[in-house]
């Protein structure tokens, strides 16, 4: 993991979407471990982050470039970022409600650190339940999301592997595709949008993976 650029694998975006959203892209990174209990170092890191990240930072967040880019993209794809907050804003709201970033488990804590530090939207899947390369594409007619009744509305934007949808873009994960206690390999996934530099996405993945593997010395 010495080179963040080589570490992040490029996913594909359906051509119909690249025409509409030229800045949309996907990167993923494999971590050879699952989640588990959060470490003492990670808890300290979250405590420091809680002290650094307070009300003024939360208020100013909307006008920072990367969180703003995600808010704009949410509007472009029909989501209301005030009703369904972007990942970084969802964590910020939790920070404000709970008075700090409360440790949960290793994966969630690693994602929290990486998302708050970078502003980039990250999520994770069980790598052993992902078949082949990842892509962002519209749903096909009659296609559904595992664990969710009925078919998805036509052309719903998805993160998918070569066989099936894994999750809605910025939405629910398909049943059994997320990380669970028996997961041994985790696939970290970042979705970049117009206005989010690739270097920020790669560093977000790098940071989350470092937090999980303990290579940052935490």
């Amino acid at each position, binding site marked *: 993991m010495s080179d963040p650029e080589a570490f992040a694998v490029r996913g594909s975006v359906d051509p119909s979407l690249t025409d509409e959203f030229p800045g949309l892209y996907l990167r993923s990174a494999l971590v050879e471990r699952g989640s588990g209990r959060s470490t003492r170092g990670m808890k300290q890191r979250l405590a420091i982050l809680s002290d650094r990240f307070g009300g003024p930072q939360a208020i100013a967040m909307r006008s920072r470039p990367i969180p703003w880019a995600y808010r704009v993209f949410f509007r472009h794809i029909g*989501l209301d970022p005030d009703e369904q907050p972007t990942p970084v804003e969802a964590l910020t709201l939790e920070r404000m409600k709970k008075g700090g970033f409360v440790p949960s488990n290793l994966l969630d804590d690693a994602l929290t650190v990486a998302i708050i530090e970078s502003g980039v939207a990250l999520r994770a899947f069980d790598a052993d339940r992902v078949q082949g390369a990842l892509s962002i594409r519209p749903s096909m007619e009659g296609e559904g999301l595992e664990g969710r009744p009925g078919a998805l509305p036509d052309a719903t934007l998805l993160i998918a592997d070569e066989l099936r949808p894994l999750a809605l873009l910025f939405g629910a994960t398909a049943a059994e595709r997320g990380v669970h206690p028996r997961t041994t390999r985790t696939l970290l996934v970042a979705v970049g949008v117009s206005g989010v530099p690739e270097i920020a996405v790669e560093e977000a993945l790098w940071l989350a993976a470092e937090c999980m593997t303990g290579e940052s010395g935490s």
Partner: protein
Amino acid sequence: MSALLELDSNAGEGDGRLELAPGLGKWTTEEDLRAARIDLRRQIARMERELGELFATTFPRLGIEWNVGAAGGPRVLGIDELSATRDALANRLAEARAEIARRADHEQSNRELVERMIADPAEYRWVRVRNEDVGEPGCKHWHSRPKWGIIGMFLGWWRVKLSSGCPLATG
């Protein structure tokens, strides 16, 4: 571009050319529609930035509506839905700016009231102006009250007392 905003995005699908809304009387291509969608997205991005900046500068004022609503997704929105989002953002921006301007006038008059109270407390007996009334955070308030309680009240010794801030949290 304004003509493109009037397009009926469902008309004429299948032959690569789409019919304009009634009255415009000519044809256009999918490329034109895409250009219109891109332009609308650019407008939405600009308004979202303005709304974010307004939100940050407005703090700590409460009671201003910021929600815009959404068409539902995630999916690629058509021109009519992007237009609706753009219009909703524009309306929200206009309403928020009007509300902030109204409050700014009110806050300015309250600041002037505080100055007058400090200059002549006896003229403004028992008047209280809170931080919130002048658009500032915190629990501080200016209160015109008599010095030494009832003695000051009879002798006309009035002063403006500045409170010491928010009460301490209780267990």
